[in-house]
Each structure stands twice: as structure tokens, then as C-alpha cells.
């Protein structure tokens, strides 16, 4: 008899839109066992090729079926340092689950029948966390004099630091903000990635001897050259892509038009949803529009809903996207969560101009209707604006989630660091070394906006290269 996929428990919609607590509960042991038992243990598993870091998925799921959760955890840890994080934020439906043999051929993303690999990964990761299974590392004497400066404490920086520290290198992580975690802290809301998960991973690194230096903007407080002069023999740049893109339309600088980064940073990093206990304010509106179709747009929309709920306003948040549902790059799960919570969608709409209200902030958004043409370089059908199709939407608060570009502060202060047309750092793909000898880079600063797991893959490669050459 065919086994049905095991549904994961989620916080009830009416409760969760009023708080920032985690929405997905995760599998219980019994649920994990049932889901793991659905895995066909294919002779030639496709799922592994769908994982950007090549986790032995077949093997870790097998360990779960044998109730050997410890081995499941360490199997994942062999390739991925942060299973609890990736099990929560990885876009599995575009990666391993899409490759799973149970996904119907030709589907744009994973079928529901595919194994819930991400939930099993999360289960294993959380098991490791609860049982303090963090790998102690095998410190090697030859690395005891290796001092590495890691710039940025996001996914790439954390991963690289962990890899190096486990081998005995002395690692200092420099973070410009007052809290560590990078985009995992300021960008991803706690209802998707709770802070205790992130804090646990950071504490593990501290126990390994990694030293975190916050409030330190490399490039301004110290240059690359000066870091070398301080005695670091290698530097890893995990600067991230944090510069928000705007739309370039009229009225875009009106008050109450936010970049997603600003909106999310105020709420996540600065806890603006607890104003005035926390002193950073954030505004919310009656008619909130979110521009974009990626994960950041979904996060912003769900944050906006929660702020409306907390303020006692009617839930009225609409995502504006120029293509249709199927082309949205966001995780299917997050689109679904957003829908369940009450986020509305306006597809085939292209913002044209923001109109000011009587109060001096944004009041309306004029959009053009679009239709889909032939596929573009991204493989998705290109939106084409229909002339004369303008329509108006009420909008007293808007969040623009139209993509992010590479952080520029350090790059501008380091002319010898070669960058490409997108201002991303150019590296040798073999070892992630930049145009400056001894300076490596990984994560979004190299590939542009990517996933947490891709950033970790690059960071790991860089760490290996650093160790090989030391």
C-alpha cells in the first residue's frame, strides 16, 4: 500500500499571525520514522545530486529508519554544518525534493509525494542540538599558528569559521552589526528561523574557540592590508548581498516606502514589533503592498500581516508580482504559508508610479498590467507591460523586495579586489581565492543572491583551500 506523506504540524493561522513564533513545528520521532520509512532507498538516488552540497540523503534517512539518529546527524554534518538551519530555510522543493524519484517528471518543483527531506534534516539537526552532538573537531598542531580573519557572520562566514576552527586554526569573525548571524538574523524572520537555533550554532562556534568581534566594519575600521598586518595569514570574505535594489519608478522615495531589508531589519534585528519596549519604530498601514515574488517578499508580507494584527488592523497585505504564481521564485511552502495567513496576490502587475497621500506619505500605487512573453535568460516567461492598462491600488505602506546586490563598503575601499559587472567578487572557482593572494570569498558576495546552503558550500570549499595551503 502506498504510504501518504507525513504532514508536519503547524501553528494555527489565527494564533500565529499575532506573534513571531515558529510556524512549522517539525516532526516528532514517530512522524520522522513514518516519513523516513517512505523513502525508497533508491539504488541510484537522484536526491543527492539535487543537494548543492551533496549530503548523503539516502544514508541519513536510512539511519533514521534504524532509529540511529546520531548517525543520521553526523551523516548530514559531514557535508552541512548547520542542519537545523538548513532544514528550516533550504528551498528543498527546488533542490533535493525536486530530484527525488517520487516527484513527477517535468514538474517545476517537487510533488507533494516526494520525501520531506528538509523536515527529516531538521529532525536530525534538532536531535543533534538537543543531545549536544556538535562535532568537537580534530585539531591539528600544524594549524595552531594559522590565524584567519572572517569578514561577515552570515551563513558563509559561520560555516568557514567552523571548518577552520575544527582543525585548530584561530579564527576571528568581524561583524559590522551589533549582533551576529548576518541575514539569518536581520533578514529571515524568527517565525521561520527562531533565534535560539541560530544562537545555538553560534555558541557551538564560540566553544570551538571562534572569536566574534561585533560593531566592526572591515573596510572602514580596518582595511584588508591592515588585517594582514595584524597577523592574520588568510582572510575570508563573506560579505553578503545586502544592498537593496529599488524599482526606479516615480515617487519611490515617499515616506512609508521601505526596502524589504529596512522593513525586515527594523522588525527582526531591532525588534520594532515590540516598540516602545524596543526603541526602533516601524510603520504599518491599512493597505500594504509588497513588491516582488521571492522569499524576501513572502517574509515581508508575513511580517506586515503580523504587524497589522498586533496593531488591531484588518489584515490587508497584497503581494504584487509581474509574472504569475508558478514563476514566483519563493519557496512553495512559504507561498502557501503566506496564503493561509491571508496574504493576497496580484499577479501580472508592474508598478509604474507611487502617488503621494494628503498626509505626505505614499497613498496609491499605479500599476501596469503585464502579460507573459517568451522565456528569458532565467528560464521564466518574461513579463511584457500592456500599454494603456494602468490601474490604481490603495497603498499607505509599501515594501520593495526587488532583489539585492553585493555589499559595497569593503569593495570600494579595496580597489585591488577584482569584481565583475554586478560588483560581485571574482574568485577562482577551484579554491574561492580572490584576486588578492590569501583573500578568499564565498556566499552571496560571489554568486549574487543565492541560498544559505549554496553560501555554505562555497565557504567550505574556501576553508578546505585555506587548510590545504597552510
Amino acid at each position, binding site marked *: 500500500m502506498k504510504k501518504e506523506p507525513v504532514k508536519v504540524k503547524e501553528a494555527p493561522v489565527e494564533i500565529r499571525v499575532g506573534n513571531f513564533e515558529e510556524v512549522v513545528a517539525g516532526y516528532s520521532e514517530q512522524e520522522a520514522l513514518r516519513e523516513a520509512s517512505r523513502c525508497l532507498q533508491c539504488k541510484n538516488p537522484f536526491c543527492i545530486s539535487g543537494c548543492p552540497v551533496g549530503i548523503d540523503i539516502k544514508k541519513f534517512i536510512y539511519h533514521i529508519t534504524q532509529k540511529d539518529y546520531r548517525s543520521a546527524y553526523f551523516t548530514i554534518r559531514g557535508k552541512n554544518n548547520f542542519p537545523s538551519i538548513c532544514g528550516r530555510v533550504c528551498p528543498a522543493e527546488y533542490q533535493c525534493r525536486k530530484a527525488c524519484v517520487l516527484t513527477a517528471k517535468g514538474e517545476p518543483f517537487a510533488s507533494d509525494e516526494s520525501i520531506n527531506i528538509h523536515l527529516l534534516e531538521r529532525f536530525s539537526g534538532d536531535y543533534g542540538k538537543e543531545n549536544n552532538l556538535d562535532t568537537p573537531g580534530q585539531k591539528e598542531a600544524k594549524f595552531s599558528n594559522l590565524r584567519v580573519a572572517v569578514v561577515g557572520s552570515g551563513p558563509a562566514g559561520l560555516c568557514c569559521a567552523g571548518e577552520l576552527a575544527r582543525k585548530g586554526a584561530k579564527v576571528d569573525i568581524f561583524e*559590522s*552589526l*551589533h549582533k551576529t548571524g548576518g541575514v539569518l538574523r*536581520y533578514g529571515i524572520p524568527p517565525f521561520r528561523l527562531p533565534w535560539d537555533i541560530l544562537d545555538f550554532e553560534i555558541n557551538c562556534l564560540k566553544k570551538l574557540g571562534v572569536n566574534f568581534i*561585533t*560593531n*566592526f*566594519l572591515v573596510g*572602514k*575600521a*580596518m582595511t584588508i592590508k591592515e588585517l594582514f598586518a595584524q597577523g592574520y595569514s588568510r582572510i575570508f570574505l563573506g560579505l553578503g548581498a*545586502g*544592498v*537593496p535594489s*529599488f524599482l526606479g519608478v516615480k515617487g*519611490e*522615495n*515617499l*515616506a*512609508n516606502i*521601505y*526596502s524589504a*531589508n*529596512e522593513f525586515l*531589519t*527594523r522588525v527582526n534585528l*531591532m*525588534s520594532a514589533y515590540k*516598540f*516602545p*519596549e*524596543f*526603541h*526602533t*519604530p516601524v*510603520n504599518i498601514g491599512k493597505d500594504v503592498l509588497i513588491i516582488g515574488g521571492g522569499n524576501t517578499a513572502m517574509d515581508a508580507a508575513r511580517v506586515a500581516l503580523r504587524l497589522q494584527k498586533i496593531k488591531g488592523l484588518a489584515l490587508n497585505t497584497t503581494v504584487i508580482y509581474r509574472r504569475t504564481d508558478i514563476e514566483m521564485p519563493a519557496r512553495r511552502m512559504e507561498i502557501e504559508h503566506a496564503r493561509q495567513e491571508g496574504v493576497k496576490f496580484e499577479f501580472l502587475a508592474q508598478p509604474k508610479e507611487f502617488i503621494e497621500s494628503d498626509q*505626505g*506619505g505614499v497613498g496609491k500605487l499605479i500599476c501596469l498590467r503585464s502579460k507573459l512573453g517568451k522565456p528569458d535568460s532565467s528560464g521564466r516567461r518574461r513579463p511584457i507591460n500592456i500599454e494603456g492598462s494602468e490601474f490604481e491600488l490603495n497603498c499607505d505602506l509599501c515594501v520593495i523586495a526587488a532583489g539585492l546586490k553585493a*555589499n*559595497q*563598503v569593503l569593495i570600494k575601499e579595496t580597489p585591488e579586489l577584482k569584481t565583475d559587472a554586478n560588483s560581485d567578487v571574482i574568485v577562482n572557482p577551484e579554491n574561492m581565492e580572490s584576486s588578492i593572494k590569501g583573500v578568499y570569498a564565498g556566499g552571496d558576495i560571489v554568486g549574487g543572491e543565492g541560498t544559505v546552503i549554496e553560501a555554505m558550500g562555497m565557504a567550505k570549499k574556501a576553508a578546505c583551500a585555506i587548510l590545504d595551503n597552510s
Partner: protein
Amino acid sequence: MKILSKEVIANYAGARIIKLSVFAPEISLKARAGNFVVVMVNEKGERIPLTIVDADSKAGSITLIFQEAGLTTRILGALDAGDKLYALSGPLGHATEIKNYGKVILVGGGVGIAEILPVARALKEAGLPAGQAGNHITAILGSRNKGMLILEAELKSASDQLYIMTDDGSYGLRGFTTDILKELLSKDKYDLIYSVGPIPMMKKVTEIAAEYKVKTLVSLNALMVDATGMCGCCRVSIFGEVKFSCVDGPEFDGSGVDWAELEKRNKAYSIQEKHICNLSRYIKP
């Protein structure tokens, strides 16, 4: 991040301007005129930008000057020597381009006077080539009244000419900084104007300077969050182009600034500010 010393440099009818010296060795080494820092007073605090007024790399300290206005500056004002700031990051923003311009007028209004001081000092010392005198500095200081005037002695020694204007005539000349600016420009030729203060003042200074075709640099006080180019809260329109004050500024050519837009963006949280200021009376003075 430890506060080394604290001095109330103006105190008039409950309004205070405070000078703090803060231990920040790395920042003190790098700070240049025009740079700023981001400060958090405690773990629940806002991130606010403050200009680095002075830096002493030997003592490892920087000087910050602010007027108590909102909650954050009131909490900051209630701290004493020995207390620690929760977060301090910098130096941020572009430094002022220091070179020999010739004759320069610096216009500071209110607590903006503190922000023109490091620029006045740097420009005065900019003697090119060696042995020659630096820029000829005229400083115009504007204040509500005598009690709120700050840094008169410091700017006197950093300038060749000093004018003081008060709104009520209680000290110096009665009137606005722009009155004397107009007079100076009509009589003599100047090469650069540098202005920091309330938006209406900077706007007026720029307009007057434009009549006399003198370039004006202004340092904008846009709201910020991360202040490292990641949020766009501080975005301003300069000659129709979007710039981030934190990483592209905070100094811009005043003639390109969309002042109305900046004023509106800066008022985005006026309701919350009012609310939270009501709470701030619970802070110990």
C-alpha cells in the same frame, strides 16, 4: 565603548547639549572630518548616527556632541563617565574632501555647529604646499539664544573670521545665519560653503550660495538603521538620482538635494517619537 568624560556644554530651559568623550581606539585612528559613528545606548536602543567631532588617537578616544531631543539622546545624556555604550561602530560615511579651496564659509546651526568644527579644523590645516597657509575660514554660528550656543572658543581658533547669530539677539547679532551669509557673499568672493544644521537653514544657505554661484556642501541628517548601505532608509534624491546618505554621503552638493523629500522622510516616525518621548520623562536626569 566606555565613556571617558561627559560635559554639559549648553543647558537652557531644560534643553541640553552634551559632549561625550568615548574610548574607541580603532575608530580614533581612522576618523576623519566628516565621518560619523552609529551608537546604540542599550540592547533595546535604536541605532543612531552621530558625527565624530574630534578624535584623539593617542588617548584612543572620540568626541561626540548631541542635543537631547528624542528618547535615545535622552538616555545617552543620562549616562556618565564610566558607563558603557551597548554598541558603537565606525568610522562611517565619506570623509570631507580636504584640500586648499581658498576662501571657505562654514555655516553651522544649533547642534550642527559641532559638525562643522572638525571640517573647519581640517580645512584650516590644509596648507598646500607645505609652509603655506591653509584655507581662509569664515565661520557663521547660529543659535536660538546665548544659552544654546556651543563651541564658540573652539571655532574661534579654527577660523579666521567668526560671526555669531542668535534668533533673539541675546548674543552676537540678532537674526539668521543666512542674513550674514548674504552680506558676506555680496561683498567678497568665496570658493566653498559648507553647512550643517536644520533642513530649512541648509536649504536657504544653498539657495543664497547658488545666487552667487558658490558651491555648497551640506551634511544631511537622514534617518538610518544599519548605516552601512544595507537598508536604504537614508536614501535621498541628489540631482534626481537615489543616493544612500550613509555610504554615498552624508555630504552632498546642496544644490542637488530634494529638500522636501528629505523633510518628509525624516518625519516618517513623528507619531512614535512623540509617544516615546512621553515615556522618556522616566529616565533619570
